[in-house]
C-alpha cells in the first residue's frame, strides 16, 4: 500500500515538473557572424538574422520556423546512444562507415516516411575526412523534407552539421547559406 502511495506521489511529482517546465519561457536569440563554443570545441560563422533555439545539447537555428528549415550543429561522444538504431559510432571508423551508422539511424526512424538517400560521398570538414549525404523523406503530416547531412569523426567525438528544410521552396532558398556555414566550421583544439 505504502509502495503504491509512493508511486502515486512520484506520478504527481512528474506531472508537476512537466507543467512547470512547460510554463517556463524559453528564449530564442538572434544570431549572426562568428560563433564559438569552447565546450563543444568548434567555431562557425552563422548567417545573419537567424534565430537560435534555447537548447543546451546542440545548436539549432532557423529563419522561418523549425518545421520549414533548420540548421543543426551537434557534437556527440562516439559512445553515445543514437536514436532508432542500436549501432554505435567508433572512433576508428572510416567516413563511409560513420555515414552508414548516422543514416541508418535516420532511415530507421519511423517518423521519416518514404526515406530516400539521394547522395552519399566523401567530404572534407574542417580539414578532416568526413561525409556528405543528401536525403529526402516525408513527415507524417505529408510535408516533403530534403536534408543535407555532413559528419566527421574527430578523436572521441562526432560532429554533425545538418540542414533540413521543406523540399518545396525552402530547401533551395537556404542550401547555399548552409554550405557557407559548413565551410566556416572549424574544430578548435582545446
Amino acid at each position, binding site marked *: 500500500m505504502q509502495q503504491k502511495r509512493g508511486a502515486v506521489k512520484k506520478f504527481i511529482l512528474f506531472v508537476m515538473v512537466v507543467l512547470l517546465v512547460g510554463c517556463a519561457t524559453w528564449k530564442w536569440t538572434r544570431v549572426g557572424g562568428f560563433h564559438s563554443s569552447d565546450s563543444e570545441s568548434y567555431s562557425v560563422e552563422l548567417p545573419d538574422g537567424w534565430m537560435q533555439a534555447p537548447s543546451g545539447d546542440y545548436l539549432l537555428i532557423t529563419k522561418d520556423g523549425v518545421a520549414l528549415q533548420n540548421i543543426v550543429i551537434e557534437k556527440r561522444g562516439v559512445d553515445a546512444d543514437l536514436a532508432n538504431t542500436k549501432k554505435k559510432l*567508433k572512433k*576508428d571508423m572510416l567516413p563511409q562507415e560513420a555515414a552508414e551508422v548516422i543514416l541508418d539511424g535516420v532511415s530507421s526512424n*519511423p*517518423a521519416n516516411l518514404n526515406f530516400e538517400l539521394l547522395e552519399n560521398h*566523401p567530404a572534407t570538414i574542417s580539414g578532416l575526412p568526413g561525409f556528405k549525404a543528401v536525403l529526402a523523406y516525408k513527415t*507524417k503530416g505529408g510535408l516533403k523534407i530534403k536534408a543535407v547531412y555532413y559528419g566527421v569523426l574527430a578523436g572521441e567525438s562526432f560532429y554533425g552539421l545538418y540542414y533540413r528544410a521543406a523540399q518545396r521552396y525552402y530547401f533551395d532558398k537556404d542550401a547555399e547559406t548552409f554550405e557557407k556555414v559548413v565551410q566556416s566550421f572549424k574544430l578548435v583544439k582545446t
Partner: protein
Amino acid sequence: MKFLYVLSLVCLAVTGCATTAVEPIAGHQPLALHDDEKRIWARSAEEEKVLLKSGLVYEDAALQAYVNGVAQRLQPPEVLDQVPFKILLLKNSYLNAFAYPNGMVFVHTGIVARMENEAQLAALLAHEMTHTTYRHALSSFRDIKNKTAALSTMSVVLMGFGGIGTLASALGTIGTLASVSGYSRQLETEADIEGLKLVVQAGYDPEEAKCIFTLLKKEVEEEKIREPFFFGSHPRLQERIDNYDALLNGEYKDRKGGVKNEEIFITMTYQLVLDNAVLDLRAGRFSSAERAAQKILKTKPDDKKAYYLLGETARQRGQQDDTVKAISSFEKAIALDSSYPDPYKSLGLVRLKMGEKPEAKKLFESYLALQKDAPDRAYVEAYIRECSKKEAP
C-alpha cells in the same frame, strides 16, 4: 517511464474490461453496421490511407497474393462476401500485426521473418481476422468511456519508446489500439479460441499456433526486446501460449497433425527474410540479422546473399572474432558467385582496416569493375588512393 507505462496499461485495462456484446459477422444475415461502427470504419479507412502512402508497404506482388490466399482459406465465402479482407505487409522489423475493423490487416515483415511455415502464418492471420469478424474494435471503443484521455495517456507513454511512439501515432487511434495495447484479455482470448477454430477448419496443424508464439517469446526473452507492440510484449505472448496450451490439451487434444506447408512458405518469404534482416541490421539488431541469415542457410546452404549478410553483420558489429567471421563469410559469398560485387567491397574494408592494403586495393578494384554504377564510387576510389600511397620509410 516504466511506472507510467504500467499505470496507463492498468487504466486501459480497467476501462476496457467490461465488454459490450456485439454479434459477430458470420455471413448468415445481411451486415448492418451500427452508426458508431460506420464512423469507426470510416476512420479506419482514413488511417489506412496514411499507411498506404507512407512508403512502408512491402512491395512483393507474389508474396502479397500468397499471404492473401492463406487468409482467404481461413474464412467461409459468406464472411468474405461481407468483409473485404485484405492483408498487407509493412516494412518494419518489429514484431507486430494488427487488424482494422473493416478487414484491412497489416502484418510487419519482422513477425513474418521469424515464422517457419504457413500454418504459423495462418494462426496469426486467423487471430487478427477474428478481431475484425467479432467486431472487437467496436466493443472496445464503446467500453472506453473517456477515449481521448486514455489514448492521450498512451501517447505520453509511447514517447518513451522514441520512434515507436511516432509510428504508433502514425497508425492513428484505431491502429494504435489494435497494435499497441491490444484488446482486453477477454477479447484477445476470444480471438485465440475462434482463430484456432478457423485454423483447424482450414486443415492446418493447430500445434503451430502455439509454436509461433513460443518462438516469438523466446526471441523477446533472448534479445531482451522491449517493444510496446502487442506481439513484442512478453506477458501478452505468454497469454497466447497459455490459451493455445489449454485449447490443444482440451478441445483439440485428438486433433494431431495437419497442413504446415513449410517448403512453399520458405520459398515465398525468402526475399522478405533477407530484406527484413537488412532492416534489423540498420537498427543495430545484429543477432536478429544473423539469425535470419542462418535461417536462410539452413534451407539454402549455397546462398551468396545470406553469406554476405552474415559477413556484414559481423563487420558492422565489430566484436571479438567478428573480423574472422566476416572474412570467412565474404570469401564464401565470392566463392559462390565471383561476379557478385558487394562482398568484394566489404572484404576490402576489412582488409584495409587490417592494414593489408595491396589485398584491399585489389578487392576495391574488383568491386568497381563489377559495379559500374556503384553509388559509393567516390568513397571506394578514395580507398584505392589510400591503398596506393607508399608507406613513409
